[in-house]
């Protein structure tokens, strides 16, 4: 039986629907970006300094840390998981790196070891979640507490310092490269790499597949456990890097660094349009989401809004953004 004309017609019709649909999808994808632009426009009218190049770099540098956490979180959320331990991983890895350096280890090696430590913490999460079949929320809630406790034990509750003589290490958080702050540069480079990984590699596809339908992925021979372990390890490594940048910026590693950062990271991911139920989303949105949060923080400060009201405004904006998004898509 060959397809009849009519059927073809129907298919074509559906085809055009799909086009419309993907236009709609595009609009939905662009929603966060439009939101960001709107906020930027309002702020630049209300506060003249806002659009200074200086201030823009300032905002970008401020978000670089949350953005790195949020990039990892995007992968995790795409698989249908969540990682509450990123803030604690940031703190522990930052403290370890600082401790290594204070102990005389070469800064570059210390940084590599720090990132490795983060990856190992992430892998630990991944193993508990995949092999242990523990819900990601609860697994990382537990490790959030554990890693924080380890940080406190390791640092004894004091900031780790005594390594400020390395220029290379100082560069990571405070340097400029052709006029661009190094953390900003790192953020964009990592963004580019992760974008590519998600879109063009088998690993990236498997991340989406796993989040879309785990059982079907297993039946299709996707090594879901392995994918999960890699995803959490990646997030751990990125969190560690964020911790190292923060340590470099502050010139010390504080034991309570990164406290509640996981919430900002998750907010950035969701503001960017990635679905908390997994399988759907994109990392560009996360970058936009992190920018929205950063721009709001900065703008409200520039406007001199008191920090108590800032919280109300920020919560309100998140709510509004998500509500508009839902309205549009339904």
């Amino acid at each position, binding site marked *: 039986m060959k397809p009849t004309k009519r059927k073809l017609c129907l298919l074509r019709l559906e085809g055009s629907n799909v086009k419309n649909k993907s236009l709609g999808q595009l609009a939905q994808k662009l929603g966060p970006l439009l939101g960001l632009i709107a906020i930027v426009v309002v702020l630049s009218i209300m506060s003249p*300094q806002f659009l*200074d190049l200086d201030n823009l770099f300032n905002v970008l540098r401020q978000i670089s840390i949350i953005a790195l956490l949020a990039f990892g979180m995007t992968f995790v959320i795409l698989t249908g998981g969540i990682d509450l331990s990123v803030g604690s991983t940031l703190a522990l890895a930052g403290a370890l790196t600082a401790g290594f350096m204070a102990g005389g280890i070469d800064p570059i090696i210390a940084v590599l070891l720090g990132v490795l430590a983060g990856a190992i913490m992430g892998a630990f999460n991944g193993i508990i979640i995949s092999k242990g079949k523990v819900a990601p929320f609860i697994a990382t809630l537990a490790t959030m507490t554990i890693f924080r406790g380890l940080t406190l034990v390791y640092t004894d*509750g004091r900031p780790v*310092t005594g390594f400020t003589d390395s220029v290379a290490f100082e560069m990571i958080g405070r340097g400029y490269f052709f006029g661009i702050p190094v953390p900003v540069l790192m953020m964009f480079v990592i963004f580019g790499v992760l974008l590519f990984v998600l879109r063009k590699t088998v690993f990236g596809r498997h991340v989406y597949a796993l989040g879309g339908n785990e059982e079907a992925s297993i039946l299709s021979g996707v090594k879901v456990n392995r994918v999960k372990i890699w995803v959490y390890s990646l997030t751990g490594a990125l969190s560690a890097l964020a911790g190292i940048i923060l340590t470099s*910026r*502050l010139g010390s590693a504080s034991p309570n660094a990164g406290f509640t950062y996981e919430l900002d990271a998750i907010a950035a991911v969701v503001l960017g349009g990635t679905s908390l139920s997994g399988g759907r989303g994109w990392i560009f949105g996360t970058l936009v989401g992190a920018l929205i949060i950063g721009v709001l923080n900065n703008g409200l*400060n*520039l406007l001199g809004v008191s920090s108590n009201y800032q919280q109300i405004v920020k919560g309100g904006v998140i709510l509004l953004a998500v509500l508009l998004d839902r309205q549009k898509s339904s």
Partner: protein
Amino acid sequence: ACSTESPTSGGDDEEASKEDDGKVHIGLAVSTQANPFFVTLKEGAEAKAEEMGVELTTVDAKDDAATQLSSIEDLIQQDVDVLVVNPTDSEAVVTAIEAANDADIPVITVDRSADGGEVVSHIASDNVAGGEMAADYIKEQLGGEGKVVELEGIPGSSAARERGKGFHNVVDEESGIEVVAKQPADFERAKGLTVMENIIQSTPEFDAVFAHNDEMALGAVQALEAAGMSDVVVVGFDATDDARAAVKEGTMDATIAQQPTVIGEKGIETAVKVANGKSVEDFIPVELELVTAE
């Protein structure tokens, strides 16, 4: 059937517990162990306890008043002989102190005071005086004229309130000194950095910064350096090791030294005196000192 009195409270088993090993048992409730100031305070107490041969159990409230209440209740369950409390919140700690009073356990407060209950002794620096010292120093550095930024500690914490009060006692009287921005950064270094960065954007002109503690001051220094504003006078509070180093290097200008170790030590000494039935002063001040590069 109803009462606010615990049916089993006020027992006289306190004596018994002291007898079972003959050692004085002191309970120490600190507000947080994630801040170097309190870690040092605790270490001072521990060293002293070791030296004097008394048993010390430390609990940590993680900066939460409810957790502090619970952990003090746990210490009461252990029948400690004396309770040394570093309150998270001067007001909220009162019930915990009253519970200890009910159980006939004498209470000593350190670093932060309690607004009620029976406290046999309070050991602390004079934070109002410290705030005044900082203001005087800044006034002097600016030659009596200039714009100042204030980074506040955890809103509502007694340290923040008292230091702010002392600071404003001085600057509000000076016509030449103007506080151009004032924002809390919760005693945290990372918050000190971001808050300062944002203030730099909104209020680009100022001559000095007073931070309610060194952690925030050190965060602010990073922001100022990045913005090429190293000539701004920065004054902190506590004189932590980091801050002393920064003052030496010249990145910070001054810090008001508290002596957490001494506060901790005196806490234990006083507690032992109380346990042995000796009388103690109801306020034991610990000296403050202005630390500068000279």
